[in-house]
């Protein structure tokens, strides 16, 4: 058991770092294909982290969650996303509102900020997974930043999905898994939220003939 006790915190931190790293990878890529690939890898890393926590934390429900997560976020949603950008065009995030170099600096600042705001949390916690918590909060903030700073509706969807991954990671690290029924409800909401966003992208494409959200600026006062 002693070997496990030393190994678990390290593996948990490693898993969380990988999940965060794929989130940052979004920021230095431009093509929507690369966005989807980064999201797919991130979800895979997340599913493995879930399984890891399930194994060391002796919570076998987490295996079920990891499998559902992998099916949903590694297979189903990325394939829908790929089909979506192939149909509506606009393969590149050509001119984000914030350029790539600045985006990366901001991402660094956001992760530092998340270390500052989660300090009380990490201080009171005795969980072996506590070192991953600032990374999860950092990923949540990066997800919000992607939504704000990117112009293509599809990039914003990926930003939202990354944000959801950050929250799932936070839940797994902080609580070793929330009750299964809640987890299922969350998955259902993510899937339906994604499908609604997809429908809206088609509607934006139909009515505006482009998915650049720059054009969504009619409503004022």
């Amino acid at each position, binding site marked *: 058991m002693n070997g496990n006790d030393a190994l678990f915190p390290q593996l948990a931190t490693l898993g969380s770092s990988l999940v965060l790293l794929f989130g940052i990878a979004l920021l230095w890529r431009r093509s929507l294909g690369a966005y989807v690939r980064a999201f797919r890898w991130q979800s895979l890393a997340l599913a493995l982290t879930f399984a890891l926590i399930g194994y060391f934390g002796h919570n076998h429900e987490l295996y079920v969650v990891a499998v559902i997560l992998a099916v949903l976020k590694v297979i189903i949603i990325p394939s829908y996303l790929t089909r979506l950008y192939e149909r509506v065009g606009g393969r590149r995030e050509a001119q984000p509102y914030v350029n790539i170099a600045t985006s990366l600096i901001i991402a660094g600042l956001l992760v530092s900020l998340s270390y500052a705001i989660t300090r009380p949390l990490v201080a009171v916690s005795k969980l072996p997974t506590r070192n991953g918590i600032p990374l999860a909060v950092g990923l949540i903030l990066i997800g919000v930043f992607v*939504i704000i700073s990117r112009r293509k509706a599809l990039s914003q969807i990926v930003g939202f999905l990354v944000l*959801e991954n950050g929250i799932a990671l936070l839940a797994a690290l902080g609580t070793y898994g929330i009750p299964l029924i809640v987890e299922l409800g969350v998955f259902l909401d993510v899937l*339906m939220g994604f499908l609604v966003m997809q429908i809206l992208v088609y*509607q*934006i494409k139909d009515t505006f003939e482009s998915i650049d959200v720059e054009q969504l600026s009619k*409503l004022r006062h």
Partner: protein
Amino acid sequence: MKFLLLLLPPFVAALGAYMVRPYRATVGWFNALLSLVSLGAALVFAGHAARGGEAPVFGPGELLRADGLSALLMVCVAAASTLTLFLSPGVGTETNYTQAQFRRYQVLINLFIFSMLLAVSANNVAIMWVALEATTIFSALLITLARSKSSVEASWKYVLIGSVGIALAFAGTVLGYFDFVALAGRAENALNWPVLLQNAPAMHPEVMKLAFVFLLVGYGTKAGIAPMHTWKPDAYGEAPPALAALMSSALFAVAMYAILRWKVVADAAVKDHYADNLLLALGLLSLAIAAFSVAQSRNYKRMLAYSSVEHTGLICFGLGLGAAGVFAALLHLVNHTAAKSLMFFLAGDIERRYGSPAIKQARGLLKVAPWTGGLFAAGLLALVGLPPFGMFISEFALFRAGFAQHHPWVRGLMAAALLLLLVAFVSFITHLNRMLYGEPPAEVAAGETAGWRLAPMLLGLLALAMLGLTLPAPLETLLQQIVRIVSR
């Protein structure tokens, strides 16, 4: 059993509307009548709670629970839903929707109502979250029912802002649960509100503070507390009037309910008025932004949306002012639900008559449609808090609770709020004057659009006036029961 009578009707209604193809008006009527069952169940719960009965629970792991607070919200949601379903397109209104649009509307609006009722009857705070997230999904699809450029734009902004907000609320829920797990280990029903509340005093205040900030920002986005209110004028302005009515009355109330539930837990864990101060600060910001936005509005639907932001601010204020404030805030919530569910229908009728939502265009309303115009004017006067309507009483109670506080800075805050209300008041009256009087544009034909639908709206307005003249005894005892739950 009562829970089934509450939750099943909207679900059955959605299913029925989905199966019957093509849409027929009988489906709309049937669904409207069915919603009376929900309303009845909600009233039974409210009566039970007002008599001080033990909160009934239902389902595995006490999934559903109806204490006084839940019961009050059930009545608000069910009553607004019933009114909406009777006034819906495809029931009484002539609209240029196609059969497919009517059918889609009936399915989605009933699912929307179902998720709101589930959110207020859920005992588990995470299930409450799941239900609230579902409301975003169903309402987003309804906003684009007309499929115009501006409605698609509004819906996209609403979905993005709403989803981010609700995701942050989930992070807050997890943080609240996080401390619980660290404290008591993994337990069955740990996310049930009474269990959470019971363990709250032992929770770490710093963690709870962080959790509450996430929850306030998250659910505050759904409620439209400034500065997270930016989706509100877009969504309310572009949504079909029936949906705007339901979102501004019922959905808003449900989001404030979620904040209140967590505030009680936060208060039990953190002692130094932390949640109160946050609510007061955001309340003042909402009032300020609303007051100046109303002055600038050129569109009466967006003006009503800013009125919502104003009342959001007032209710935040009340929730942050101790027991008397909570009483006033909840009464205000009831009044607001009654007033707002009428106003968007009237605004929708005015827009159809004039063909434009611009205040400038809608001149001479009293000449064109005296009944619609009169009701609209009365509703707006109720919203700005004039007697004899209910909001006068609740705002009065709210300010009395504020000025009774010992801290001089709270009194200063209340004085600032009063000033902002005055700014909003002047702007509302100016806009209303421009709409009511003057010569109507030549191309607008005179006549009422609403027809028989004026009757239920008149009934709503009478209820609002009644709440201003007297506080019905059952409502008062129910509110007192709730205050006992909420501020201990």
